[in-house]
Structures are given as structure tokens and as C-alpha cells.
């Protein structure tokens, strides 16, 4: 189980980092949420991997799973959820206002922001058409 979980964490994190290093807001947001999943699993794993043990007091059993990481994961999920919602909304708004889904708010190689009123590049037109 350790090997499986560790390699899963590693792969998900690697994918997340790759996506976050890309230039478009959509991939960056995907990368951030993937990283969020990896981290939630990681917090969970830091309470040691056990199976079939309850985290709450139970007369019938003598050994327990650590309840704190589970509580932490719950909090982290809620916060991650809110943050993802916010950044999706922000990315949409930025896409709408700057006419570009690049994280810099302008197409690379297109010049400075003062020229933002010039006509959209061919690639941009294609995106809008599709």
C-alpha cells in the first residue's frame, strides 16, 4: 500500500507541477487542483496508513487510526474548494477583460499591454471561432 500511495502521490504531483508551469490559465488551474488532491492525500498519509481502524472512540477495538489528519484534510479540502472556485472565476474574468487566457493577460510576443486594443492574433481568432 505504501508503494502504491507514494508513487501515486509522486505522479500526481509531477503532473500538477507540469500543468502549473504552462502558460494558459486553464492548465494552471487544473494543475493547482491536482496539487491540492496530492496534498490532501499526503496529509492523510502522514497520519500513518492503516486500514479498518476507526478514528473515533469505540469500545470494541483497541487500536485507532489517527483522527487529526482526517480533520485537517477536511479543512484543507474545504479551503481548496473555495480557492479553486475563486481562481476559476478570476481566470474567466481575466479572459473576458483582457481577451487572452494567458496568465500574463496578453498573448506572448504580442507586445506590451498598451497595445491591447490592437486586433486579436490569428490564434486568438481561431479560439473564438471554435
Amino acid at each position, binding site marked *: 500500500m505504501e508503494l502504491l500511495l507514494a508513487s501515486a502521490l509522486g505522479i500526481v504531483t509531477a503532473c500538477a507541477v507540469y500543468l502549473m508551469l504552462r502558460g494558459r490559465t486553464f492548465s494552471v488551474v487544473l494543475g493547482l487542483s491536482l496539487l491540492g488532491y496530492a496534498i490532501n492525500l*499526503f496529509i492523510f498519509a502522514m*497520519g*500513518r496508513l492503516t486500514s479498518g481502524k476507526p478514528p473515533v472512540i469505540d469500545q470494541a477495538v483497541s487500536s485507532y487510526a489517527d483522527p487529526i489528519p482526517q480533520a485537517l484534510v477536511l479543512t484543507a479540502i474545504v479551503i481548496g474548494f473555495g480557492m479553486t472556485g*475563486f481562481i476559476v472565476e*478570476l481566470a474567466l474574468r481575466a479572459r473576458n477583460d483582457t481577451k487572452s487566457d494567458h496568465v500574463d493577460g496578453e498573448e506572448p510576443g504580442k507586445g506590451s*499591454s498598451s497595445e*491591447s486594443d490592437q486586433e486579436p492574433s490569428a490564434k486568438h481568432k481561431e479560439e473564438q471561432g471554435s
Partner: protein
Amino acid sequence: MSHLLVLPIVLPALTAALLLLMGRQLAISRVISFVASALLLLIGIQLFQDANSGAIQTYVLGDWAAPFGIVLVLDRLSGLMVLLTSIVAIAALFYAMQGWDQRGKYFHALFQFQLMGINGAFLTGDLFNLFVFFEVLLIASYCLLVYGFGERRLRAAVHYVVINLTGSALFLIGVSILYGLTGTLNMAQLAERIASSAADDIALIRSASLLLIAVFGIKAALFPLYFWLPNAYSSASAPVAALFAIMTKIGIYAIFRFNSLIFGGSEGVTADITSPWLMPVAMLTLILGGLGALAAKRLLELIAYLTVASVGMILMAYSIGNQASFSGALFYMVHSTLISAALFLLAEMIGQARGSIEEKLQTGPLMKQGVALGIAVLIAGAIAIGLPLSSGFLAKLMILQSATLNPHMPLIWTLILLASFIGLIGLSRAGSTLFWKTSHVYAADAHSPSFGQWLPILFLLGASLLMVVYAAPLKQITDQTAAQMKAPQRYIEAVVGQTADRAPRALPRELRP
């Protein structure tokens, strides 16, 4: 157990909830928000006085005993920070009430949520809650940053949000590694457990600790991690940028807290963890902040870079390593927070008085109330750079003095003086462009700043002046604060001392990896 300690968190939270219900009723919202901030200032003063007795107060939420439940801790450092927050907050809020809060919904509610997050981060004694309060203040700051919208704000906000979310992710990794190795999240208990950790765990503990330092470096805008700041701060609205002046200080606060408490000062396995890094990184931050100020194209950008430089100055002073230098760092922190808030507000007024050219550093029309604004910028700039007889001068003097015994003293002195000089050039360039290179007509869309806008500036500059007048008692306070931070044992005793069984316990065998 006094309930006063929880109020800096509960009061803004309740006020914010109430303000959300108020919706668009601006007049009532303003009154509520202002009264709450004034109350917060009173609470801040009281807590500061309490902390000044030297006792470390704890507040056990829900009466769950310390290592298991959540605990708030008030010591001299957090008392000082809470007071500083409430001073900056009331000035920024008063400025916002002169018109900024009409440009969108829920300004006041977001403002109060931000205060709640900031105060929570200063008061919490628990690692995971530090994360939670960071998130509370960050999400409020994201909303405040894009408040009023505009393309430039959105551009800056995307970078700011993505970088901070990545930082939060790293924070969680660091926290969970530390939890996995020590089995606790309470900072005081963590300090004890790390000091007595098993030899196998040391490498992991050190990497988790460095990861956390990197996260705080992002918040504080330390050298390789500061690139988000100038853009974000210079595109935020003025009152928000003024409030953000305290936000970089949260990263610094967390570095102070971790270094002195959890990394165990001069002994323990993580004692030397930041010393090889902090000094060079702080030096680079100081110099690059100064150079950025020289290259800035807008006044707000220049001030944002001065904020970066001030972070470098504080952490360089801290990493000199003796008690006097820490005291100097604290004095400088209070001074730079007040003055950068004042400068952010002033820059916006200048932009408004110049019309559509705003505060871009280029030849422009005549400025309305140019003389008054010029004098205000001259005074604020002189204080920020640390010309003699200003609070910045005293702070730098304290830092220079404390560095005399340090082996790197020539380098430290050179850098501090050089950075001040570069900052002086940058500010005088900005001042001469803004006030002297003008045509002889006013712009059509220029407005003169109102008296209400001047009040918070006078308040902040006055506070800075009071720092000079009461320099001796204030230095005594920062000295005592530094002394308290150098002796973390009292903090640990105050938090986990009451529990009968506080010997560090190893995790049960079956729970170890």
C-alpha cells in the same frame, strides 16, 4: 482567562458577517465598519499593555487543554503586531470611506475579513490554524486586490493568486511532514519535540522547516520570491495597498516566530537552519528592492519596491543575530509599516491630483494642491529613507550599532547605507519629476484631495513622529520583545506547562513508519 484575547479575531468576524447582511446600505456599513475598527484599536492597545507586563497569556478555545485543543497566545511580539495592524487598518479604512468603498459591493465586509485573518495569524499558537488564518487573509486580499476591477488589476491578481495558492500548497506539505514526524501541531509542543527528535528524522525535519521558511519567504517577498509584489501592490487600490503594507510583515512575523521558537534559537537540530540563507537572501532583497525603486515607472511601483527593500532590511537586521539587532529589526518593522501605508495613500492622492496621467513618473500637468502634496511626500520620503531625526533614522542607527561586533560588519554597513542612498535617489527622481517637471495648466480631470483624505495621512505621519518623540520607551519595548523571543522556554511553558504529562513522548511503535 481573559476573553479579550479572542476579540481581535471574533470582532472582525462578526462585524464582517453583519456587514454582509447590510449589502448596499453604504452609510450604515461605514458606521459599523468604522466603529468596529475603532474598537479593534482599543482592544489592540489594551492587549499591547497586557503583553507589556511580560506575562505570556494563553486562550484555550472551547476549554480544550493546550496540546490537544486550539490555543491562542499573546506575547510581546504578537501584542505589538496586533496593535500595529489596528493602527494601519483604521487609517486605511478612513481613507477608503472617502469614496473607494462605493466602487463595488462588500468592501467593508472584505476589509473586516482581512483583519480577522491578519489578527488570527498573529495570535494563533497552532501550526494548522496559522495555515487557516493565512487562507482567510489571503482570500480576502484576493478579493480586495481585484476590488473595482480593471485590466491591470486582473493581470496582477492572476499572478498573485496562483503564487499564493502554490505557497499554501507548500505550507501544507511542510506542516504535514512536521506532524507526521512529531505528532503535534501546537507550536510550543512542536518546539519541544523537534529538539528531542530521533536522529533518523532530522533530515526530514530540516527539509520541512526549510519548506516552511520558503513559504513565509513568499508572503514576506524575500529575494527570489518577491516578483509578484510590485505588480500586485502597485495595481491595488490605495487603501488596500496600505493595508497590504502589514501583509508582508506577516511573513516576517512567521519567520521570527519559527526561528526563535520552533527552530530553537541557538541549540537543537534545526538551530542553524536559516542562518546560512537568511543573511545573503535578505541582502539581495534589500539591494534589488532599491534598484527596482530606481527603475520604477510609476510612483506606486516605486513604493512597492521600497516595501521589498524594507523586508530585506528587517530580515538582514534580524540575521545579524544578537538581541540588539532584533530589537532594531522590530523598530524598523513598525516604522516601515506605518510609512509605507502613508506613502501608498499619498501616491493615490497625487495620481488623483494629476488627472489621467495618474502617478506615472513623467512630465505632466500641474498638480492640484501641489505644494501640500509636495511637502507631504518630502516628509514621508525623508522618514522612509531614514534621514536624521526621523523614525527610519533611529531604526537604522539601532541596526548599524548592533552590527558593530558582527564579522560581516563592513558589508552590512555598506549595504544599509548604499540601499538608503539608492532609495534616496529613486525618491528624489520621482519627486522632481512629479512636482517640478510640469506644464502650467491643470488637467481637466484632476481633483484636489479632500480634507478627509488628508486625515489618515496626517495620522500615519503623526504616528511616525510619535515614534521619534517616544523613541526611548519604544526602544525599551522592542528590547524587551527581542529578549522575550530569545528565551522561548517561557512561551513553551506558558502554552503546554499546565498539562501534567509534558515530557516529550515518542509515537507508539506501530504508528512509526
